[in-house]
């Protein structure tokens, strides 16, 4: 049995704004085991980043608040432990890397000092030792000429190097869990390939669990073991990566897969977009947030959120369309025609 690192149950995070209550995350549950990579996929406003920030207790309060749920890291609930304990969790147990490495590094502090700061804060090391460790870490994430680079400022680093430096900082205290929020979105593809390799190597070395947040299904296909698909603050479907790509059950997941132009497409085919506009998080219906854009919506969809339905091993979906009907619909979709198992 794999070692369970994290168990999130019914997480709900809301922002109380003048315009109304934004239900950014709405009853999200998932687990993470050691050596496992979970991909959280969704479009802007789906709540994937807010879910991660809620875990790190980094939601600005006010206006934001985790209103419900338990976030169990082993036997500690991250929602209820003290601020001091939480500070120790960040970095030691869970570390996070962000999309934009330029704004998440301090521009007037040398790289070595920034990494060293994380080390001296959590470990009993002198500044000199921390500096030495920073050099070692930079070398491990593949930064050439680390002894010289450690003495430089972020502006002297390229985008890919900055992201490597962020990863070095994140792994400095051997965290069990690494949260990567769109780590390669701001990077060019050849650099993205390098960074994905680094994340993989680091995971293998430290046996960590990785939570990868991205809108890029290609990246998900490449490194995730299991996938959670989010829309309008809800998890609409989750499952092992192959199940999500070849045996998806939710119309939104179908829509996402069908709307992608693919590099390996042999013929030029017309894309099938999802109709309509992204949801307004203030005026979400009580039921399924995808209702208005869903081609298969039914009477009950708008007002009642469907219960979780288990459709396979570790594979669950929230959808009112009955299972048999979904099977029939899925095989008609162009994306699944070829790839039906």
């Amino acid at each position, binding site marked *: 049995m794999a070692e369970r690192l994290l168990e999130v149950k019914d997480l709900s995070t809301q922002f109380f704004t003048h315009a109304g209550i934004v239900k950014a995350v709405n009853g999200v549950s998932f687990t993470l085991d050691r050596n496992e990579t979970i991909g959280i996929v969704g479009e802007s406003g789906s709540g994937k980043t807010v879910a991660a920030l809620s875990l790190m207790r980094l939601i600005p309060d006010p206006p934001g608040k985790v209103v419900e749920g338990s976030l169990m890291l082993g036997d500690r609930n991250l929602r209820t432990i003290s601020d001091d304990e939480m500070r120790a969790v960040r970095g030691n147990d869970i570390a996070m890397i962000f999309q934009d490495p330029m704004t998440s590094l301090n521009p007037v502090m040398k790289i070595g000092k920034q990494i060293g700061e994380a080390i001296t804060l959590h470990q009993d090391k002198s500044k000199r030792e921390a500096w030495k460790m920073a050099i070692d870490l930079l070398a491990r994430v593949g930064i050439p000429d680390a002894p010289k680079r450690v003495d430089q400022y972020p502006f002297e680093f390229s985008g890919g190097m900055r992201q490597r430096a962020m990863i070095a900082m994140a792994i400095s205290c051997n965290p069990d869990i690494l949260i990567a929020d769109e780590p390669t979105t701001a990077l060019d593809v050849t650099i993205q390939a390098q960074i994905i390799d680094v994340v993989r190597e680091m995971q293998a070395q430290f046996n960590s669990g990785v939570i990868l947040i991205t809108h890029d299904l290609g990246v998900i*296909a490449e490194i995730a073991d299991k996938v959670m698909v989010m829309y309008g603050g809800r998890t609409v479907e989750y499952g092992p990566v192959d199940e999500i790509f070849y045996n998806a059950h939710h119309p939104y997941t179908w829509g996402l897969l069908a709307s992608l132009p693919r590099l390996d497409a042999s013929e030029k085919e017309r894309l099938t*977009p999802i109709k309509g506009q992204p949801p307004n998080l203030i005026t979400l219906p009580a039921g399924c947030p995808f209702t208005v854009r869903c081609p298969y919506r039914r009477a009950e969809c708008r007002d009642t959120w469907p219960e979780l339905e288990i459709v396979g091993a570790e594979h669950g979906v929230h959808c009112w369309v009955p299972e048999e009907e979904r099977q029939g619909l899925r095989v008609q979709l162009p994306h699944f025609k070829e790839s039906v198992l």
Partner: protein
Amino acid sequence: MSLLEVRDLKKHFPIRTGVLKRTTGWVYAVDGVSFDVEKGETIGLVGESGGGKSTVGRTVLRLTPATGGSVIFEDIDVMKASHSDLKKLRRDMQIVFQDPYASLNPRMRIRAIVGEALKIHDIGTEAERKTRVSELLETVGLTAEHGERYPHEFSGGQRQRIGIARALALNPKLIILDEPVSALDVSIRAQVLNLLEDLQDEFDLTFMFVSHDLSVVKHISDRVAVMYLGKIVEISDSKVLYDHPQHPYTEALLSAVPIPDPHTERSRRRIVLEGDVPSPANPPKGCVFHPRCPRAQEICTTAMPRLVATPGADAGERHQVACYFPARFTGGQRRVDDAPFKDALPQEQD
């Protein structure tokens, strides 16, 4: 005759330093780029940041003056056109920008934004312009009522539709699309790509599609030019380029794109390029790609190879590559010759 002929286009930006703002160096953003665009086709310009693809688009429109070279649009030299000629040219050549938030004036109503070009070019009466704007909004999938609103009331995808309506207002022949879907979510991206394809058919448009996203470029383009550090390193029909890339940079770029299919991903071999793209202010001597190239040899450090067709391969004359050691495909078999490709050697000046 081609609709657009770009010859040896160069755009160098000065680097100014010190109090006196003296020029201490140059950024070679676009450095000797030549290609033709045929009427009705979509040509994709693809590459990583710093490759110069957006600068090509802007220089072709003379939104920024070129340092050298020529751009001929239907027999008129864009670079030398007088002010009044340029105004006429701009009717035929339009642009859609990447950032749908920054490219629409937040204080103007949509009706005014879309109709502005009609007003500047003094087309029609007030009432006629109003009808035309409503028509344009409907063409891009919005409604006439949307015209009374302001940009902040729209989502990213809708704003990009407004940007497209504005570009269509003067019935242009060529539209330069500069990363038009990069800021959009996947589900919305597909809507806008389909819209562009429909508009191209309906209005007989020619597109120059600039993007870093290889999957999107492959989907929309008939021909693709791959740029690296201000140069075109390979250009070909889209399908040929993606199936049989000859330049090592194209190969690496294609292999780096993750494909949304776990089975395919597990069986793929990825070429991971070392290091970063060098600064265009200080491009490498010789072939611009040689410091990162897995195939680089001595000769690659001497001079930039010429962009030429590789004869004897399946690809044909339309497939050109700037490499001394291109991959060649004969009868589906890939091979790389040991001896440098002679045609790519720089020619003596005569």
